């Protein structure tokens, strides 16, 4: 029986989540907070993170719980994303962006890297028209503005 202490988190809607201490430590924000204030029975409120997103984040941290390379995030751009992470990121765009915000707020660098890389891959190697289609953006340039050499520095 492991002696992991448990942490209580509250999402923005008030939903409570109970997670092990070592999973909570994946988030630098929580780690520092808990080191400072020590063990308390009260919940840690996370007003910026909604329930479903928090669930997803906890899922990520739990899967990578025993990952030795977690904190020394691999900066190798050419490194491929592993299978589980790829599946993890197959969510709708809104969720993905919320995950970025959550990872940023909770300061979970590997999750931040993963989600940003996923978004980057959605934009990379595409023409402006293809980008507009992917994200459903309207082109608000006037025709002559478009012709103008915006990329004269290119």
């Amino acid at each position: 029986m492991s002696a992991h202490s448990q942490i209580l988190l509250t999402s923005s809607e008030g939903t409570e989540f109970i997670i092990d201490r070592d999973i909570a430590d994946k988030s630098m924000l929580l780690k520092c907070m808990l080191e400072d204030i020590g063990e308390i029975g009260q919940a840690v409120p996370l007003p910026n993170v909604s329930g479903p997103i928090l669930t997803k984040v906890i899922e990520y941290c739990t899967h990578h719980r025993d990952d030795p390379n977690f904190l020394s995030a691999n900066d190798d751009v050419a490194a491929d994303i592993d299978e589980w992470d790829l599946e993890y990121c197959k969510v709708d765009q809104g969720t993905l962006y919320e995950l970025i915000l959550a990872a940023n707020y909770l300061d979970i660098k590997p999750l931040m890297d993963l989600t940003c890389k996923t978004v980057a891959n959605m934009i990379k190697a595409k023409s402006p028209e293809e980008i507009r289609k992917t994200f459903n953006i309207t082109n608000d340039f006037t025709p002559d503005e478009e012709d103008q050499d915006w990329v004269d520095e290119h």
Partner: protein
Amino acid sequence: MTDFHPTPLPPPTPASTITINALIYIPELLQPIVDHFERPDICSCILVSRHWNQCFTPSLWHTVDTLSKPWQELFRRHDCKYDLPRDKIAARVRETIASHGHHIRHLTATWNIVLEAVAANSGCTNLTSLVVGSVMYHRKVTPLDLKTVIAALPHPPLTVLYATDQTATPLVQWLHLPWVSNRRIYRTGIVNEDLRRKITVERFWSLVQQNPGLVRLRFPTLGAMNDLSKEYILEQLLALKELRDLDLELTLLDARTILRLFPKLERLRIYNMDGLMVLSAQEQYRNLRHLGLRTYVLFTNVLKVLHHLPGLEELWIKGVAVEPVGHLRTTMASIPITLSPNGPSTRGDEVVVSPPVIKAFYIDETLPRDDESIALLVRRFPRLVQIRAGVNRATKKALWEHCYYLEEMHGVKGGAEAWKRRRAEDKRKRCK
């Protein structure tokens, strides 16, 4: 009293209001995304919509390289005596730097006008690295005083590279003098060619002596450097305590001596591998990341040398003399095919060194060529980026199947773009 039972999942929340537009508006969220982009990707982004234009333009200005084509084009037009709008071009450059200068983080400036604009514009607050070229020096452009430029910046950029005669300062870290290797000195009909060459060599060494903080040094392409004694050259080089990157061009110095004298060396380009073949088994040079060999070598010799260079990431060989398949196979058998990202791995008692990421090699067409061995080589180095060899179909097939990063290959029409396009089509056809 609290009951520690896991609570059921809450009902789904209403549709989130975060859109991509909101995301890219926040610079600290945009930055990790842009870090994965190449320049063409940023250029596509700024054409998407006005909002995207606003968000991505600063990223476009992070690195300004005046050696790139559009700038060179501008410079050429400005330089031409007969082109009228000379002042207009200069004014345009100044205007551009004034409006976008505060985004610039890395600047390569080979043109006085750019440097003056940076010095005059107090807005370049984010400049962290500055590379100043003296490429046009021989065209009698007044060399700008680098000290003035740096003094004008709010805080001196962290790295300043390049040098001209007047700019020996402790900030200079990199000496690369293309004008020293100006091929014009070899033009027939020039009187006193020897004197000219001598002056160039002297000029080079006086600059080296004035700049003991050099980190990168490239020798000029002058065979005349070999007229100096090796002791002299080594003595001069030893004064450079910080040297990490050395390009010896044509100078015939011994590789082993260089590596021994400069254990901190990370990049080395040298004429041949002399001396490396007789290294004792224990001698290892862990800091070397990039090795370039400027002559034709026997590939099996190269493979043997790899054991002494465990940190090697990139190998550039000018030419490979390929031996008969049998001999090659035996040597190759000792090298594992998989690239382990964590460096040497152990298989039982044996330490297995992963092959470095060979990026480029050229195969001499005049030497007897064994296509089967080339194909074998190619399969062992899947990270090949560049290959120049007139290869037959079997080798082309091996390259196609194994070298996903290949960008430049002799004989492919249209170059890298065509290659990538054909690969994408090929993938699509296979998936159908």
